[in-house]
């Protein structure tokens, strides 16, 4: 009989691992990817509200010309923190929430390859988020833009500590992202269920793999840029120090070599979510699965070749400019392929317009617009009229909000029932969608006009004679509609968690393995690790009459080994294909301790230098503790 072994390790001594399964301490020492996913998701949502409030404050200041509501210092801090927050503290961790919860389920694994590294990445993320905001308590908030161009960031021109909080906070966040990226990359390569070849993986898993590769390759570059900036500010080095012949453009190159792949890190997970939702709600397989895979891979590869399209106005010279024009236009091709394939999935299907589908299709509609404005910027002469204007602000929000946020909300509506066992209220969900759709377009649609009318970005005010007042007013009204939409969602979430309808294991006839488990899944995910024989194996197994594209012909061929459609996924169903007991990794203190060490070290750099060696010492001790603690079987 399959049993879950209790940890067979000493419960005494400094290296004993914690054992409590419930309570605060169990959350602090958890190494369960599902719990870590919940931690990431809830933290990200809190920061979504923070970033949203920052946006509302800016929009309120801009509602009319010459407004004095928010002064330049505060406004500059607001757009800096809004951008930084939304990118690093909302979209990335929300995506990570889904990577954590869903990917192990989708590949038929019990957890990720390195559970403690997984927990570590969350605690370090939290440390970075806090470090970055500590400046608020001192009145020195980062105010140089989320892109922090040199040499505005040099000590001479940004003497206050605001930049330092951003640099240290982001550096720490980078460590968290790297840890997560490495973990998911290895997990997907190594821990797939038997029979799950790469081309049988769900597209969301593919996207997680590719995003993880992007993280692993892109984050070291911003790490170097941040090191160089930090050294300029702390030790007087000259990387971006113009009088010593440091070149501010070097910062832009390093930054954008990272930040362009970063925007794909931001959009790909949402694309993966859309690729999961649309087939399920159309009752058809994803159209052109192999081409979708090739598209994701090419987009990721090409993302490293386009960075200087953010620098078309820096004076690169016509040859370099032309090269980046070509690469930027090229990357539009696989992107278009994906859009056509999503629509073709709906075409010929049986579409149910429940909230997940609404958000997914809203993504397709909005991302198309963002992509088209992107093609306009890709032409440098046109870009010299659009760069640094509200036209770019419109573009980026169509892809990052109309794209990523819509996709992520789709994921929330789609997968929250699996996580909580309860269905989000459908009527409220639809209201949320429509308010958000209308509010979003009202906010950012007119910003295209503002850009064309010559309104620059990052300006805290503008004069009445510029003629920008009307569309700014409309845009601000839209922003408030977005605020209301978010409130509707919060109400829905609270209502659901309290008294939502039971979801059941598989409320929508899902195609992928996570739907074969209970809602929520048992902490070991699968009683027995399934063996898969086709893409969408779970669905094919449920609907044998409809056949599978890649299932080998022959009597008795099954998409999924029969033992693995249990109704509850509980042990003791009598089907043991395992080698014995289910063993799960034990909780551990060391990821939290290591995260704390990093937090203390970061605080040391920012406030009180002796804390730096203290933090590093805690980190070193944690690493040793981590390496030496008994690993359960």
């Amino acid at each position, binding site marked *: 009989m399959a049993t879950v072994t209790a940890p067979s390790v000493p419960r005494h001594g400094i290296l004993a691992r914690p054992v409590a399964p419930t309570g605060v301490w169990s959350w602090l020492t958890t190494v369960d990817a599902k719990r870590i996913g919940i931690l990431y998701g809830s933290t990200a949502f809190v920061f979504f509200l923070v970033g949203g409030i920052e946006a509302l404050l800016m929009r309120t200041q801009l509602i009319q010309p010459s407004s004095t509501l928010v002064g330049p210092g505060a406004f*500059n801090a607001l757009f800096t923190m809004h951008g930084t927050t939304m990118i690093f503290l909302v979209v990335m961790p929300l995506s990570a929430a889904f990577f954590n919860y869903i990917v192990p389920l989708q590949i038929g694994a019990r957890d990720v390859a390195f559970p403690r590294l997984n927990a570590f990445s969350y605690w370090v993320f939290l440390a970075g988020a806090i470090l970055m905001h500590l400046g608020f308590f001192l009145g020195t908030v980062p105010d140089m833009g989320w892109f922090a161009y040199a040499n505005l960031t040099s000590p001479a021109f940004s003497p206050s500590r605001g930049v330092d909080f951003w640099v240290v906070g982001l550096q720490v966040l980078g460590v968290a992202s790297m840890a997560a990226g490495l973990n998911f990359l290895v997990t997907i390569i190594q821990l797939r269920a038997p029979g799950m070849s790469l081309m049988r993986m769900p597209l969301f898993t593919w996207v997680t793999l590719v995003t993880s590769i992007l993280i692993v390759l892109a984050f070291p570059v911003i790490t170097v840029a941040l090191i160089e900036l930090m050294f300029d500010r702390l030790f007087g080095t000259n990387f971006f120090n113009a009088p010593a012949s*440091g070149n501010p453009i070097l910062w832009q190159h390093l930054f954008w070599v990272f930040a362009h792949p970063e925007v794909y890190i931001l959009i790909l997970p949402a694309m993966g979510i859309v690729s999961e939702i649309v087939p399920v709600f159309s009752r058809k397989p994803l159209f*052109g699965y192999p081409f979708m895979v090739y598209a994701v891979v090419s987009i990721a590869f090409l993302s490293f070749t386009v960075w200087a399209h953010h620098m078309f106005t820096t004076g690169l010279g016509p040859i370099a400019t032309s090269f980046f024009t070509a690469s930027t*236009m090229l990357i539009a091709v696989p992107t278009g392929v994906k859009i056509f394939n999503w629509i*073709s999935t709906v075409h010929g299907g049986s579409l149910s317009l429940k909230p997940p589908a609404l958000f997914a299709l809203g993504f397709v509609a909005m991302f198309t617009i963002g992509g088209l404005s992107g093609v306009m910027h890709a032409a*440098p002469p046109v870009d010299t009229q659009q760069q640094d204007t509200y036209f770019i602000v419109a573009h980026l929000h169509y892809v990052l909000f109309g794209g990523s946020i819509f996709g992520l909300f789709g994921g929330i509506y789609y997968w929250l029932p699996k996580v909580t066992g309860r269905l989000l209220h459908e009527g409220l969900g639809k209201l949320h969608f429509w308010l958000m759709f209308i509010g979003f377009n009202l906010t950012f649609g007119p910003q295209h006009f503002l850009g*064309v*009318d010559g309104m620059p970005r990052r300006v805290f005010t503008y004069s009445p004679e*510029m003629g920008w007042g009307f569309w700014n007013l409309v845009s601000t009204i839209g922003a408030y509609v977005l605020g209301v939409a978010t409130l509707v969602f919060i109400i829905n979430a609270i209502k659901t968690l309290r008294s939502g309808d039971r979801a059941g294991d598989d409320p929508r006839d899902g195609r992928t393995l996570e739907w074969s488990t209970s809602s929520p899944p048992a902490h070991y995910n699968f009683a027995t690790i399934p063996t898969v024989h086709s893409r969408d194996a779970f669905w094919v197994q449920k609907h044998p009459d*409809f056949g599978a594209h890649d299932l080998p012909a022959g009597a008795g061929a099954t998409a999924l080994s029969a033992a693995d459609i249990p109704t509850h996924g509980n042990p003791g169903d009598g089907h043991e294909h395992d080698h014995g007991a289910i063993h799960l990794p034990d909780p551990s203190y060391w990821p939290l301790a290591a995260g704390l060490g990093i937090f203390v070290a970061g605080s040391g750099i920012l406030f009180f230098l002796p804390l730096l060696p203290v933090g590093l010492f805690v980190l070193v001790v944690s690493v040793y503790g981590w390496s030496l603690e008994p690993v359960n079987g």
Partner: protein
Amino acid sequence: MISNARLSLRVALLTLVVVLLTGCTQWADSSLPQTTVFPLSDVARYIQNLYELIFWMAVVVFVGVEGFLLYAIIRFRRRREDEMPAQTHGNTRLEIAWTVLPSIVLLVIAIPTIPTIFAQDAIPPTASQRIKVIGHQWWWEFQYPDLGVVTANEFHLPLGETARLDLESADVVHSFWVPRVGGKMDVVPTRTNHLWFTPEKEGEFYGQCVEFCGTQHANMRVRLFVESRESFDKWVRLQRENAAAPTAGPAQQGAELFQRSACIGCHTIRGTNARAVAGPDLTHVGGRKTLAAGILDNTPENLKKWIRDPQEIKVGSKMPNLGLSDQDAGLLAAYLQSLR
């Protein structure tokens, strides 16, 4: 339920269409000072021609793709709860088609783009007006090396003559932009960037800094005056002269006060002992239309307010509040107003 959703869909679409159409009416509005789509120079026209090509192609793609999406959504709505559509996996020919076709569309866009890049970059040898533009936090300095003119925040050009701007920075990265006459170019310390254009219409054109450069980035504005050759020559002659020296009244008192104040620590007034270059050249400030980098109209009251407390108007600006009395500020304003 179907009709509700359909209704919501239509409402949303209608909102979108209304917003878009209202926006389209914008296309007719050429009176906006910094509009980017009503070119008044050769370079701006090259850009606009390219933009119009790309824009209309984007409209076609937009209508096609969103139309395809809407069609699919409406046509293939679930009608019966138990319906199960054919499990189509894909279509390789389609994949090829919608890879090749967009590539062709992009090629059509790229082909005129590349020569325009080179054209925008190549300064014509016929460029006869050479101006050195220096970006400061948060004002613009203009030097005409061939003509011996130095001024700030407002510059003049003769109609129909190609101008070449050499852009430098005194401190951080800025970006110089006057949309009616062309695209922007960043202003980067340690390098000199270049812009060129031939203005094709007389008038007063607005611009501003478009690379975030610190606290008062929003208030770092430019005015370009394009005028006839004669008018331009007259302006140049005037600019080359030393400052007027008032002989009586508040202006004269202001002149003396100026030389005794901290003002001379930052500003130049040619013909006097004020020779510092940290702040804008004030030799002919009275003749400018605006003050403080284009954010105030140049009137006696505004000038006095600015001198009295610059931080009140442009907090963070490098011009400190000198603690001048109301009366002194008035005298200085009177003096500077007289410097036409």
